[in-house]
């Protein structure tokens, strides 16, 4: 099973809302909606892995805390600078939750 990490994105949330609506109107069963969401997890992981070319680099002044459990890295960073080609953002605190992209 893929990580359900991306359900909480704009795309994932709107999909869930739409599915809820369809369930309410009785047009699909909850089981089907569940299946759709599972497929969404799989697809978005695959798509982000293969189709996305955009890169953002970031650099923190300090790694405050790290944690590794169940193949998930949790990193707390201080004073992070995000940099795309032209854009630039500075954040005081960032928490990164990183999962293994290749795990199936």
């Amino acid at each position, binding site marked *: 099973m893929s990580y359900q990490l991306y359900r909480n994105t704009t795309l994932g949330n709107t999909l869930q809302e739409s599915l809820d609506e369809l369930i309410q109107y009785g047009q699909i069963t909850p089981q089907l909606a569940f299946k759709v969401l599972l497929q969404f997890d799989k697809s978005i992981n695959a798509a982000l892995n293969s189709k996305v070319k955009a890169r953002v680099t970031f650099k923190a002044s300090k790694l405050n805390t790290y*944690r*590794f*459990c*169940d193949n998930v890295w949790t990193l707390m960073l201080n004073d992070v600078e995000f940099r795309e080609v032209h854009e630039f953002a500075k954040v005081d605190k960032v928490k990164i939750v990183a999962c293994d992209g290749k795990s199936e």
Partner: protein
Amino acid sequence: MSQSDHSNVATTTTSSCDDDTNGDQIKTEVKLEENVDGVESSEQSLTQQMDEDEQEPEPEIDIVINNVVCSFSVRCHLNLREIALNGINVEFRRENGMVTMKLRRPYTTASIWSSGRITCTGATSEDQAKVAARRYARCLQKLGFSVKFNNFRVVNVLGTCSMPWAIKIVNFSEKYKNEASYEPELHPGVTYKLKFPKATLKIFSTGSITVTASSVANVQAAIEHIFPLVYEFRKKRTILETKEKPRANL
């Protein structure tokens, strides 16, 4: 016996400092002092100062403590998953069956087993090891375990020092066949096993010596024991050896 004249060597142990040196590099700091009562060595220098009137100046050798390994118990079962989820600076790799936790100050790593046994490595003195161990215990206490600080002991100490001359290790290993083993194809240094105090010394042709023993005192005792033995096989450093290249003259 010529070596008995030089059997007293003043040694000082210093911790490799957290900030400026890394433990893997051997820091050598050797002074030849005319006078025995050097300022900082007085506390830890050998008691046997019998021949003050020797013709050669007495060498003083600094021993740098690079790593102190200690182990202790917290006398309660530890839920490793809980530590891994709530602790800070922790790594839990299930295949190893232990949690690795790190402290920044003093810079150490602890291996935590579910039995409550903890080993802590990376400290640069016995005192620092104890401070670190207590901090780990406190960390676990703050995570809600009813810990007790128990059975603390220093397990292993690694020290390095450098003689002010090079050593003819081939001849040395031939004279001390029983204790020393020199396998240049395996390791560039002579491995010298000392029974009492129990210590293992690695002696390099450059004059660098690394010691592993069960305490800082034993490291120092081992160096004091080995000094007259290697003194016999001293030689002037070649240019290559002064450049701190242990493998250069192999």
